[in-house]
C-alpha cells in the first residue's frame, strides 16, 4: 500500500471523515487549527457539516445534538478549550451519546503555552466533568497510529454509546510522517434505534436526556453506565512493549515522550543497561494488569516519563504498588524532554534501584 506523507492534525481530520464522521463542530485554538481548517474544506465535500461554533461550549453541545440524531460527530480543541467542553462530555456520558473529542494538548494550567504538553492526563482519564463517568482515551504516539485510532474511536463510541477521547500532544499535531490508509474493518455495531431522528413510524418519541430527577432512576442509569465502563475496561485496553522481556528498568510513557523513551532505551542498552519501554496506547483503560505482571518479574523498577509534573505516574504506582520502585521524570509547560535528559534520569534511577 502507498505510503503518503501527512501533517498530524490534517491526517486526524481526514481519518475522521474516512471513519464516517459527518459532523464537525469546533472553535479555533493552537496547536490544532489545521483540524478545523481541513474540516472546513473537506467536510462539506464529503456531504457532512462543518460549523465553526461561537465557543467551545457551543461546539461540544452541537456534537451532543448531532450525536443524538444518530450522526457520527466530533469536536477537537487543545487544553484550555477542552476544559470548556467538560460539561458537555459529562452530559454526553449521562445521555449515552457517542462522539469523539480530540485533545491536542499544550502547556497548562490556564492558557499556559502553545507548545506540546501532557498535563491534561488526569482530566482525560478521571473525568473533568461531574458525575461518575469514564471514557476510553486513546493516546497515539505516531501519525499512523493517530489515523488508525480515529477509526477505532468512532466504533468504540458507537459500540458503547459513550464519548471517546483521542489524547494527542502538540508535536503529534504539528509533525509530518508517512502513513498508509489501511482498510478499516468496522466493528459489528448495534443499530441506533435510540436516535432522535424523527418519529419514523415508531409508537414513541425517542427522548434523550441526562436529567433523571428520581434518585432511583438516576441510580439505575449509573449502574447501567458502570456495566458499560466495566466492558470497556475488559475489552479496550491496549499497549505496546519494546524489549521488556529481559528489561532491568522499564520506561513507561505515552505519546511523544514514548518516542523519546524508545530512543533513550536504545542508548541505555548500548551502555549495558537493559532498558525496555511500555507504552500505553489507551490511557483509560490503563494497562494496570500488565504492569503488575511485569512488576512481579525480574525488572528492578519503572520510570514514568511525561510532559507534565507527574500524572500518569499515579497509574503506574497504582499498578506496581510496593512490588518495585517507581520513578518519574518530566518536563512541562510546553518543554519537550530531550533523549539525553531521559537517558540520564534513567541512569540515575537505575543506580538507586539496582
Amino acid at each position, binding site marked *: 500500500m502507498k*505510503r*503518503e*506523507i501527512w501533517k498530524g492534525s490534517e491526517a486526524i481530520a481526514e481519518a475522521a471523515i474516512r471513519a464516517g464522521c459527518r459532523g464537525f463542530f469546533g472553535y479555533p485554538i*493552537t*496547536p490544532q487549527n489545521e483540524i478545523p481548517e481541513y474540516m472546513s474544506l473537506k467536510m462539506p465535500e464529503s456531504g457532512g457539516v462543518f460549523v465553526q461554533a461561537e465557543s467551545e461550549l457551543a461546539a461540544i453541545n452541537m456534537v451532543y445534538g448531532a450525536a443524538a440524531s444518530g450522526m457520527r460527530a466530533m469536536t477537537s480543541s487543545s487544553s484550555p478549550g477542552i476544559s470548556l467542553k467538560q460539561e458537555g462530555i459529562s452530559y454526553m456520558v449521562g445521555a449515552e451519546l457517542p462522539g469523539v473529542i480530540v485533545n491536542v494538548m499544550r502547556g497548562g494550567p490556564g492558557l499556559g*503555552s*502553545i*507548545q506540546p504538553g501532557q498535563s491534561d492526563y488526569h482530566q482525560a482519564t478521571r473525568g473533568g466533568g461531574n458525575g461518575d463517568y469514564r471514557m476510553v482515551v486513546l493516546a497515539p504516539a505516531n501519525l499512523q497510529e493517530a489515523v488508525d485510532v480515529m477509526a477505532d474511536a468512532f466504533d468504540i463510541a458507537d459500540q458503547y454509546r459513550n464519548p471517546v477521547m483521542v489524547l494527542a500532544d*502538540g*508535536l503529534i499535531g*504539528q*509533525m*509530518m*510522517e*508517512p502513513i498508509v490508509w489501511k482498510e478499516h474493518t468496522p466493528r459489528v455495531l448495534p443499530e441506533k434505534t435510540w436516535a432522535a431522528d424523527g418519529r419514523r413510524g415508531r409508537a414513541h418519541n425517542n427522548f434523550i436526556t441526562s436529567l433523571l430527577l428520581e434518585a432511583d432512576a438516576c441510580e439505575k442509569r449509573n449502574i447501567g453506565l458502570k456495566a458499560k465502563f466495566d466492558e470497556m475496561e475488559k475489552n479496550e485496553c491496549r499497549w505496546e512493549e519494546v524489549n521488556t522481556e529481559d528489561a532491568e528498568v522499564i520506561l513507561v510513557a505515552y505519546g*511523544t515522550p514514548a*518516542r*523519546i*523513551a*524508545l*530512543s*533513550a532505551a*536504545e542508548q541505555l542498552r548500548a551502555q549495558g543497561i537493559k532498558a525496555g519501554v511500555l507504552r500505553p496506547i489507551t490511557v483509560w483503560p490503563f494497562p494496570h494488569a500488565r504492569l503488575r505482571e511485569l512488576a512481579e518479574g525480574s525488572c528492578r523498577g519503572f520510570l514514568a516519563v511525561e510532559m507534565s509534573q507527574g500524572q500518569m505516574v499515579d497509574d503506574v504506582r497504582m499498578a506496581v504498588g510496593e512490588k518495585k520502585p517507581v520513578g518519574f521524570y518530566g518536563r512541562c509547560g*510546553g518543554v*519537550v524532554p*530531550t*533523549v*539525553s535528559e531521559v537517558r540520564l534520569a534513567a541512569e540515575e534511577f537505575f543506580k538507586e534501584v539496582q
Partner: protein
Amino acid sequence: MKKREIILSGFGGQGVMSIGKNLAEAGVVEGLEVSWVPSYGPEMRGGTANCTVILSEHRIGAPLVEQTTEIVVMNRPSLIKFEPTLEPGGIAFINSSIVPDKVTRDDIRAVYVPCDAIAAELGNLKVGNMVMLGAYIGATEALKVETIEEMIHEMFTGKKAKLVPLNLEALHRGIACAKEQMA
C-alpha cells in the same frame, strides 16, 4: 544508510520548511522512515523558523534531535544557533548569498551555496531553495537525484509544468556547487 538528523533554518519565506518537506517526501519514495517537525511557537512574522527532518532505515523514536548530521542555514542567526549542534564531521550548508560568515569549528565541513545568486542567474529567485536541496543531495548522496527529479515533475503539472526545466536546472546547479566543494 547513515541516519540523517537535519535541522533546516532561515527566515520565514525562504523555503526552509519546504526544503525539509521535499527531503521527507523523497525519503518516503525511497522507502525510508521519515519525520518532519516544524518549530512552532509565538513566532514573529519575518523571524527565524526551522524544521527538523530525520531520514532513517529504522523506526524513528524521538522526532526532535540534540545533535545534527547536517544543518541547512539560510540566514545569519541560524548559523550561530545551529552550528554547535553539528556532530563532528557533520556538514553545514550555508546560503552564502545571505550569510557572509564562515563556520567557526574546524571539526565540521561547510558547503557554501550562493542560492540567491544562482537563482537570479536562472531568472527566478523562487528557485533558491531548489538550489539548496540540490546541494544537500550532491554533498550527502543521502537520496537519489532521480527521486528528486521525479518529484519535481510531480510538483509542477498543468499550467506550472513549464517550471520543470527551471527547477531541474536549479537542482543540478546546487548539486554541482556542492560536488565541487566536497571534492
